[in-house]
């Protein structure tokens, strides 16, 4: 039965909503601390092809494809996790 006391479900795949002005580098610096900057950006992009592969016309422009409503995964798909 429905109960608001039950514990929160475990997230299927950890994600964040972008903050104002976020780009790959700022998200990488915040979410993947400890990973070298360039590698962190590459990882983020590979986990978020739905944003990274977005054509220029289908983006916010200025080379930053991240939209305020996007979901940005900060870990790989379940199948690719060690």
């Amino acid at each position, binding site marked *: 039965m*429905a*109960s*608001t006391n*039950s514990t*929160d*479900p475990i*997230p*299927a*795949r950890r*994600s964040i*909503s*972008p903050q*104002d002005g976020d780009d790959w580098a700022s998200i990488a610096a915040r979410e993947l601390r400890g990973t070298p900057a360039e590698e962190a950006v590459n990882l983020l992009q590979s986990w978020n092809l*739905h944003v990274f592969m977005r*054509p220029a*016309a*289908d*983006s*916010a422009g200025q080379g930053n494809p991240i*939209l*305020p*409503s*996007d*979901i940005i*995964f900060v870990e790989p*798909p*379940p199948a690719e996790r060690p």
Partner: protein
Amino acid sequence: MLDLIIRNGLVVDGTGLPAYRADVAVAGGRIRRIGQVNEPAHREINAEGLAVAPGFIDPHTHFDAQILWDAHAKPALAHGVTTIVPGNCSLSLAPLKAKHRNKLVGMFNQIEEMPLKAFEVGVQWNWESFEDYLARLAEDLAINVAPLVGHSLLRLWVMDDAATQRSATDAEVGAMQALLRRCLEAGAVGLSTSFVDVDERLRPVPSRFADFRELDALASVLSEFGRMLQVVPEFYDTDLNIARVDQLAELSLKHGIPTTFSPLFVSSDQRIDAERVMARVGEQFARGARVWPQVQTRPIDISFSFAVPSLLFIRLPSWYRVMRFGSHEEIVAAFRNPDSRRQMVAEAASMPDLWPGLRLRQAQSEANRPLVGKTLAEIAELRQSTPVESMIDLSLEEDLDAHFLSADMAHNDDARVGGLLAHPQVHVGASDGGAHILSFSTYGDTGYLFSRFVRETGALSLEGAVKKITSDTASIWGLGDRGLLQSGCAADIAIFDPTAIDRGEEYAARDVPGDGSRYVRDAKGIDTVIVGGEVAWSAADGYTDARRGALLPGAAS
């Protein structure tokens, strides 16, 4: 004196309980009594051998424009649908300033595939506010309309060009909240938003520039009225869809509102796992959230040409670049160049499910017109070629204006679709009625529910199927006295033959303003459709002059 008695029918009352034989008495637009009725009435309908059910409710439509020139939302009404919800997917026709009309029409054209000419000829724009739009609708309605407000319109109204450039300031969010509140007071059934759609320039629609704080603020206004939030999630990717389910659950729990997302498809594509999404939906319902996935009954048919962007081959690397970024000339060049062509053909072979059913739907040249209707396999045999090569050749011969139809592309696994449709946490809907009029017919999904999933596969009982598209829908959306055949409820009634109800064959009808055409399906097995106590359509007489359609839920009191 009663207005109407429906005699001797099998009452399928919308509760899901077993059907029973009884008369249904109607007066003053409401159901007065169900049982044996001995009083006289102005009109009697003999429903011997027929089911008498609440009128069907279609929660996902884009009839926003059509309902302005066609009070019946044809042919939805003739299929037994007595209530439609327009305004889905972040797009409605109000509130809208005059200066944004062209922009909005462009979005409807791009996203919902509705011709510009139909808007030009069929729509007299004499409103800006949501109140005035509702007043305009109320002038001539044969079907009930429960309109959503589109999030993209709130943004356009408040932010102008910045709506498609950035997130909103606190002041702008406040202004959108006030505007949404006015719409809900006037009688909107909720708010719709989209995380996937692009506008006429292939840029994201305004709602996609909203951050979560904005959506949360708008949900808090929905909470004042207990109204619905509808979203289009990234349905093509299970992880993304699940993340949206979690977001909706958070909003639902925090604000005590119902939410729904559409579509949820069954597909053999590994990236789309409906059962995994449903597992998450189940977890969220268990927490007390309301996150209703909408599942359509019909399989996906897709028409395409290479003259407009098509998503069909986009997962194939060599097609991706040219289809997403290529101009007309570049696509033609890629098809002509032997190297790129060879690679594209090789990759396309990795979609074996596609080729057997693919047909040429439309061609302009005299030479190719006799081939229209044939499968690409048949055409390939005539040309001593392959289906893929024939598709490319035909496209080149027609300067990309060759149109192909792929029937039964996905969502056609009856066992899985039937399992979903019968699932208690699934909302049957997502017809997209009124949209995509040149790609496929969105009408008759309700008939198909009965013909395929009640009669053929038995996934649902007659009573269970009726409940899914009547009282469940009314309860999910808070439509008060609709969706049930019970004394005191509004008299929206569908009378049909349960052994015959179905959707007819798809055909092109020339009934769109501006001399346009669209694909439609006639209803089968429907006898009479009653809206607000009066016959609005019958198999014997067709559409009537009755105008008892209501705006639902009505102005907030």
